[in-house]
């Protein structure tokens, strides 16, 4: 099995005078449970966008295994096993949950050129889809049109679409945002049960979830990496407290 170490070297992104990301060099070992935290505007989502290829960096490189994927198009990165979710639900509004998930699975299985067999005629795709929905407790919603669902449920569909691609590296942008806290614990249970060799990088603001789930944490501020370490190290780091809690103390 090929090496899926995800690594960036001096990754930077500038929009005119605004430095969204400056010289970010991080490594994510296979199987990591890695949290990316930092105040709003720190450049975390930009980093994910650079990793997935939503935009190209101003400078720096991205490596997956030994391969330089810096300029590889988004869909190619998905084929190499890297999938993301979006901070704001990016779903198929007019399609049902089952259709959406079946679409994702069909794409993964390379069925797009099988134009002569209907979707219903792929029982293995359907079975896989229903299984996935069951793990996310979405079975009852299988025939619901996405746009008619509650935001929290839609967020689960957001995750389902990513899981349907069977990623080896999963990038989650604030997965729990918009989900009531009881359900978000369930969500993270699902993520905890992912195979151990899947790398998970997630952006989160809920510190409880971060500290429960992550085995490494990177802190970003102002587009730069402030520090990185184990949860204990980060919790004890006074600089992190200052960045996050400084305003709260003065309030």
């Amino acid at each position: 099995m090929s090496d899926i170490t995800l690594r960036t070297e001096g990754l930077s992104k500038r929009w005119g005078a605004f430095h969204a990301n400056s010289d970010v060099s991080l490594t994510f070992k296979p199987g990591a449970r890695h949290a990316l935290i930092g105040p709003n505007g720190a450049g975390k989502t930009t980093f994910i966008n650079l990793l997935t290829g939503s935009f190209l960096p101003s400078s720096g490189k991205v490596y997956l295994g030994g391969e330089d994927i810096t300029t590889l198009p988004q869909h190619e990165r998905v084929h190499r096993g890297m999938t993301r979710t979006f901070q704001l639900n990016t779903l198929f509004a007019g399609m049902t949950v089952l259709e959406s998930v079946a679409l994702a699975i069909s794409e993964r299985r390379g069925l797009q050129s099988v134009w002569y067999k209907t979707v219903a005629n792929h029982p293995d795709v359907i079975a896989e889809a229903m299984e996935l929905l069951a793990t996310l407790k979405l079975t009852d919603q299988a025939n619901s049109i996405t746009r008619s669902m509650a935001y929290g449920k839609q967020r689960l569909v957001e995750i389902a679409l990513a899981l349907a691609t069977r990623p080896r590296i999963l990038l989650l942008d604030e997965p729990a945002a918009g989900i009531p806290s009881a359900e978000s614990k369930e969500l993270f249970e699902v993520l905890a049960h992912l195979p151990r060799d899947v790398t998970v990088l997630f952006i989160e603001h809920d510190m409880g979830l971060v500290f429960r789930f992550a085995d490494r944490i990177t802190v970003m501020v102002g587009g730069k990496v402030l520090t990185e370490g184990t949860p204990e190290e980060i919790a004890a780091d006074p600089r992190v407290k200052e960045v996050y809690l400084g305003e709260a103390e003065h309030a």
Partner: protein
Amino acid sequence: MSAMTDIVSPNASQPVSIAKTAMTPTPASRTHLNLPNDRWKPMEIAFWLLPVIAYFAFPGYLVLISQIMIIGLFALSLDLILGYAGIVSLGHAAFFGLGAYTAGLLAVHGWGEPVSGLLAAAVVAGVFGFIVSFLVVRGQDLTRLMVTLGICLMLHEAANKASWLTGGVDGLSGMMVGNLFGVFEFDLNGTVAFWYSFAVLFVLFVVLRRMVKSPFGLSLIGIREGVRRMPSLGVNVNRRLIAIFTVSATIAGIAGALLAQTTQFVGLDSLGFPRSAELLIMLVLGGTGRLYGALVGAAVFMVAQDYISGLNPAYWQFYIGLLLVFIVLFARGGILGGLEKLAAGFKSKKEAV
């Protein structure tokens, strides 16, 4: 489930039952899953019997009905890119006209065999569609719109100026269309033309129907409903659009060739903007993204046009404009969309009782 719903939304009706052994336990044994499948609903079968009935019921109108079927095919081709993939095109007549002139020129210069002429038209339109598709997948809606419009206008101008080849404004006449399969002569009453058009339409429809219900078709809907998500599912969106655009252009070319062969004439208007605009109106009138909407819209539009234009052309133009404004503001799903809503309304009343 009401039969009405079945015909108007072929993509989401008739339940599919899953063998329980293949799944983790589900709450109730009556869990049915709505997925695009291949069952022909009763209303669909009834729909396809209509032309047959019309043949016997309206023997004097065969030419009109043939044209409705041909334009219906043309509208189908637009539904593929507009209703399913979401590409707004104001220049689809380009492919229609190309197909028409290809078949026409072949017949004028000695090659009158209809079916091969049809195939030749399909190839020409398809190749041109493939080339144009690269231009269309780039850019935003406005750019796409302008490019499709521009290409159509270019072709129209070219055909206009090259009157030595195309007959220009006077159109291409002198087509010698041979017998269908060497046996059936195209008669003045339009009988052979009728069955020829019907056969081509039906065969292509069956193929397209299967295609839009396949994973490929589902991915087109995905592009229309959430193009931002598609690359994250590993989909090369541009390639998908190029594929469907090429298919669409091919079908439009076949429709054009059919018209040329059955009327033995190709007018410059087959490449004109009004034709592209009217096609768009027909499709929206019937309801996009449903395949049947294209056919219903074409039928309603052409019958109405035949009737009202006879009264006064300016009235027709005014009222079609007004209808369009009305549809966009109040009845966006078109005829089939409206029927769907009605059917859903009946269904919920039935369940409430």
